[in-house]
């Protein structure tokens, strides 16, 4: 083998080593220590929203009234029923290093009602009250939710319905 040939092969080997080291660096960045221990991910977010919406649905099912005048009280009772669950969820997540904040969104609820004309609905502080066969009930609610930890942040604005 000639000297030139040895130089070519040596250059090839050095190029290969450089490539491998670059890949090793990229892998180290992608799989940083502690990354696997983080709780918040798209999967866990789905579970958080599921638990939250189950609590809201349960609160809604407990709020029924015969009087159209009681709509405001119905919305208030719904929030009072749901709030301890939201506090409990926040506490559960805080133990895992995740902050959780939910706020009812009145304008989004109003927008939902505008797009469902024909139904006797009203938004009271983000809670959608519907008159159904002479019964007032919590049809749904609109909320903004922020879930975040030190490396991920999810902001959502949603309307959930219970019937």
């Amino acid at each position, binding site marked *: *083998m000639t000297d*030139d040939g040895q130089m070519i092969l040596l250059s090839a080997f050095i190029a*290969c080593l450089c490539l491998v080291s670059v890949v090793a660096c990229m892998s180290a960045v992608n799989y940083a220590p502690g990354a696997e221990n983080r709780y918040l991910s798209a999967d866990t977010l789905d579970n958080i929203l599921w*638990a939250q919406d*189950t609590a809201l649905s349960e609160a809604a099912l407990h709020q029924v009234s015969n009087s159209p005048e009681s709509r405001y009280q119905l919305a208030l009772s719904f929030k009072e029923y*749901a709030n301890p669950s939201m506090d409990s969820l926040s506490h559960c997540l805080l133990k*895992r290093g995740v902050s959780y904040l939910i706020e009812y969104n009145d304008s989004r609820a109003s927008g939902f009602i505008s797009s469902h004309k024909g139904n006797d609905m009203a938004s009271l502080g983000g809670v959608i009250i519907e008159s159904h066969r002479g019964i007032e009930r919590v049809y749904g609610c609109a909320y903004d939710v922020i879930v975040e930890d030190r490396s991920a942040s999810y902001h959502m604005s949603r309307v959930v319905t219970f019937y």
Partner: protein
Amino acid sequence: MSGRCDGGAVHMIEALLAAAIVISTLVLVNTYTVMPERDSGDDLEMLSLDILNVISYKDNSLEHPGLGFTLLSPEQWKKSSIALGADIGEMLPAGVYYYMATPYGTLGMRPADGSSVNSRPFIAYSSSENGSGQMLDCKLVLWRA
């Protein structure tokens, strides 16, 4: 003249050899980054996610209760947990076992020592008699002996 030609041919072979080494390394690197390693632990992780989604969102009935319904109260857990466990068991492939831990009790078999384990924590809602709901810290463990 013949010597120079022989030298050129050798250079060509050496250059081809070098190119082959570089290209094979590139292929190896590309394959490694596009297809991450998947071992049995990853399989269990995907399986636990699928199972949790199915039992969370499936329609609820007395014979096949959903996760949310089963964890609504300690009394409901006593009534429905066996059926829920049976449904989870049916979703598992052969050789894979489950263990669910909740504040109301456990389901399934604890992982054996030395088994391949995936533990997925989850939160579930529970209502109480006085109407103040609470969230339960639970976990679903899948394991393979």
